[in-house]
């Protein structure tokens, strides 16, 4: 899916994303251009360097995978807290 908010995964949106991801037990991976990050790691996510318009891929694996995927996709669509 495409990250459409203004600042991409900058500190504040990334923090929001990580906090959401940490609510779930499933292992969650974010991929961009062949690189992979653990969605529960703020350091991983920031060093992935996601800017506005970047295409990212989510992979969720675990007991609550469907809920987790739904919540994260929803969050990105809603603009990750950007006004």
């Amino acid at each position, binding site marked *: 899916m495409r990250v459409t908010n203004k600042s*991409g995964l*900058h500190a504040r949106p990334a923090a929001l994303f990580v906090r959401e991801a940490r609510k779930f037990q499933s292992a969650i991976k974010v991929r961009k251009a062949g690189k992979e990050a653990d969605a*529960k*790691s*703020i*350091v*991983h996510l*920031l060093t992935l360097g996601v*800017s506005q318009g970047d295409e990212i891929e989510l992979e969720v694996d675990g007991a609550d995978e469907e809920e987790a995927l739904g919540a994260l996709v929803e969050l990105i669509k809603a603009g990750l807290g950007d006004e």
Partner: protein
Amino acid sequence: MEEFSGIAASPGVAIGPALIYRRPALEGVKGAASGPASAELAKLDEALQRSRADLEQIKERAERELGASEAAIYDAHLLILDDPPIWEEVRARIAGGLSAPEAVRAVADHYAARFRELEDEYLRERGADLLDVADRVLRHLLGLAGPGLGALTDPVVVVARDLSPSETVTLDRTKVLALVTETGGPTSHASIVARALGIPAVVGVRDILSRIENGKELLVDGDAGRVVLEPDAREREAVAKREQEIRERQKEEAREAELPAQTLDGERVKLVANIGHPAESEAACRYGAEGVGLYRTEFLFMGRPAPPDEEEQYAAYATVVKRMAGRRVIIRTLDVGGDKPLAYLAMGAEANPFLGLRGLRLSLENPALFKVQLRALWRASHHGPLGVMFPMVSSLEEVELARRLLTEARDELRKEGVAVGSAVEVGVMIETPAAALMAAELAERVDFLSIGTNDLTQYTMAADRLNERVSHLYQPLHPAVLRLIRFVVEGAHRAGKWVGVCGELAGDPLATPLLLGLGLDELSMSPTFLPAVKRMVRSVRMAQARELAAAVLRSRTAEEVRQRLALRRA
């Protein structure tokens, strides 16, 4: 009792318990004793817990004192502290045989390098947060964690290797009795801040950290450059007497503050104050300053996660303008560079920060940030005479560009119906040999010039004042520097503009007759130096000062200059 000697950096005396302030050094990490992996893992967990407790406390304090948006950076730090994969990696490295500090350092450095590779400049800067958190954990691991300088509960004498600008900013000024550092000289940042705040300080005290302990009583004599560990009764008595003398001297100075700065043959020179914080305008008035010749605005911008907005800046500038009640206040626009980085301004690593993006160059690169400051300055000018001064200028084009933005800021405000002064004076700081040599041309485009002797000396002599191995070449009284000053004065006067000095040299009474003789119209210095300099002005004849200056300009070395100046005094 043991005595240490150093450089007298800020006058006054104080006695109090030592507080050793250290940053963890890589050396400490390498030498850290390593136990079995299980013990190292336990140490790591404890350090993480303590770091979390620290951060929660700091965050709470920041929220209370600075507001939620300012506290957000500590949320980011907490998020990193709870980052599962990162600390898993640290644990894996410990299992592989590294000590806990080595493992933290290795993982932090690995990710810091990843941050540096990012294309997005803003994201790249976030690596600083990771390193900050790693430093905090390391401090706990290495047993170096003391209370931070901003959260002192009892009055202490702070002893450190050196203090960075951001550390000095967080100093709790009500609790620091005196400052002692192992490195640095009279113009290092810690010294300047100590003088500005009226805290006694001795710098360049070699090896003191290894010979004292936290809580041990220290006597700091900022006039003699002495530090005494566990002073005896005789020393204590002497301090009590000195404190009494200082109080009396202050009374005398208050009386002298009323007298005009005028030579024996009736020539006036303007004596004004350098300040770095609105509160210091009090001291400026107390010591009889005829205005503010340099208000450094950096302190407003440093040690915080986001820049001050227009309202906050306006409030600070207006406070000073109102307090000076009709006396002119010259405010220098943001003057930072790679040596004083700001968390929210991506500056990028520079091999030569002193020759890099700093002062006006940085402001012109960040016009949005610059515009906020210019707007705040215009709004403050509504309350009294105000001058705007641009730092670190090397070409006329930079000044033209800055002037254009200044005009834009005024037009915007007028259009919005916001009250601004009818005019502000515009000045350029002369700190580079290029600006000095183009002084006449620059003066034609502005209202005044102000010579920053610290930087002018550094750039003319090509010697870093903080590098102990070359600091002997850093000589503000070198004939090369003095000839440039003379050249600047001539250029400014030819263009019909006034010219001042706002570097440390202006506060040195020994140099006062020389500066008068060179033709300076204004001397701007730390408020505490005003009485001594005024006394000197009132004791010389301008005719003699001019002769002295002419003789000094013919000198071949700084030593010859000093001899001529000392001779005059004798």
